[in-house]
């Protein structure tokens, strides 16, 4: 909780120095994947491997959300038989994974990114278009 509290303080008091946007990677089609290329603006703040691991984990989670497996087929057929009314009552598989992703991002922010003056925004808040990385000014951390 103390870490979260300091995160809020930092956000409210720190000035945003820059924002970096990690764009989508469409080489595998329309599935939600983000580019793992390390942006140059983050070179001074975080090491490449750590960042790439975060993005790769997110990619894996999104792939899991959109996976076509036997479970999704059964869900789809059942939904069709009920004229898709079960979507109104049930939480879909995708939504469950999105919650997992939100938790993962919060955890990453608290443990790794906030101490370095960075903040990851959940891509769902940006319409799954980009991962927004906010870079805060350095001086706010040396209070």
């Amino acid at each position, binding site marked *: 909780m103390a870490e979260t509290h300091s995160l809020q303080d930092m956000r409210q008091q720190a000035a945003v120095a820059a*924002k970096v946007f990690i764009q989508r990677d469409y080489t595998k089609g329309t599935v939600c994947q983000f580019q793992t290329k390390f942006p140059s603006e983050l070179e001074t703040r975080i090491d490449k491997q750590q960042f790439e691991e975060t993005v790769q984990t997110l990619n894996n989670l999104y792939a899991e959300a959109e996976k076509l497996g036997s479970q999704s087929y059964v869900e789809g057929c059942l939904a069709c038989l009920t004229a898709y009314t079960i979507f109104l009552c049930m939480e879909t598989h995708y939504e469950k994974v999105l919650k997992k992703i939100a938790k993962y991002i*919060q955890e990453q922010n608290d443990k790794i990114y906030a101490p370095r003056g960075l903040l990851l925004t959940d891509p769902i808040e940006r319409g799954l278009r980009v991962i927004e990385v906010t870079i805060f000014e350095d001086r706010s951390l040396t209070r």
Partner: protein
Amino acid sequence: MTSCEYQQIDPQALPTPTPAPPPHHGNDRDKREEPKRPRRKWQVFPGKNRFYCDGRIMVARQSGVLPLTLGLIVITSGLFFIFDCPFLVKHLTSCIPVIGGGLFVFVVITLLQTSLTDPGILPRATPDEAADIEKQIDNTGNASYRPPPRTKEVLINQQVVKLKYCFSCKMFRPPRTSHCSLCDNCVERFDHHCPWVGNCVGKRNYRFFYTFIVSLSFLTAFIFGCVTTHLALRAQGGKGLVFALQESPGSAVELVICFFSVWSILGLSGFHTYLVASNLTTNEDIKGSWSGKSGEGVTNPYSHKNIFINCCSVLCAPMPPSLIDRRGFLPTDESVQTAGAGIGLAAKSEINVGTKGLLESAALPALLSTSCPQMKPQTAYTCPDSSPAVNSDPSPQLSTSCGARHTASSQGDTSPPRHTKTRSKKRKLAALNIPNPSFDVPVSPTSPDAGPSSKARGSFTPLH
């Protein structure tokens, strides 16, 4: 990069649970009275949609002929239950109203789901994202006043796909996404804008739409069959068809409606079954994106090369979430930003971009003030349905069903778009007094798009 125009991050916009200011969940419906109360995102949604039940239900601004569709279905089914069912239950079996009732409920539910569901709208880029993209485009090395390329090429499954830049939404559209000018939204896996359901058909509601038309074909065929059987049974014994029709006048109405609709609906179902099996969208099929017209070895990169897997991936894939988060709360400082997003961004581009910014800042506000405030002339017209032509221009392609429109428009797809583009072109010319290149020649040699969508932009790109 200057940081002065970036706003401080509001804790509310972030995923961590910070309830400042405390949102009143469902307590207050009227958020416009007190400016301090947080507004929901649907209230400042930039597209042309209408929202009901505090953002739970959404429809396109133009509901098209949805009331007619619903009316036809309800009336025909009503007449069936009133006129035909009693006779058929007596003479045949009581399963008939049960089957009919089940089909009717199925059809109405799937129709409402198609119309009232978010089809897969992509929210517009935030000003920061848009500025970042503009910067990237500028960085690709043009020092001259030539308009920068507004397409990006990606390799998808060894197939080159061009991603186009959407001027309204300020982002490069993902593959298979198209901007619907009727709804003024970019829709993922855009199929078409269906006036019969009064909504776009896209990634999220395609399965509802498909189920709707298939079940409607079954319903129409079933009613048609039952009515024919009913009239035949009544007419037997030498009494004649006229006598039968006189005894059951409702059946005559049903017969006419079903006879005319069953062919087009069956045709439409067949067409969409083909699309599902090959993992194509109506938009792609009409444009011939993957049919090899544009070159050798062009195949659909999204197809799984297996009919069963294609069907499953389109109809049984996990239901994607709605990206527009219409019931989410706005951070208090963003509500001012999003309202004037179009004009505001022009101002931002002016700050960020150097000499080009001067050109933009001079041209864009003039364009924005004289043209539609929603930046409609800039939106690429990619809907294969001639709906805007239907509503505002007399179009030779005016037809009454999606199926007929699809088959007809493959021939005449370019002519309806020209009506709207000619008007928007004239407006722009009047505003800017610049000589406009002809539509058939792409203005920028670096963005030679094949579809009609680039032509609408072609007249606009000189400003950029």
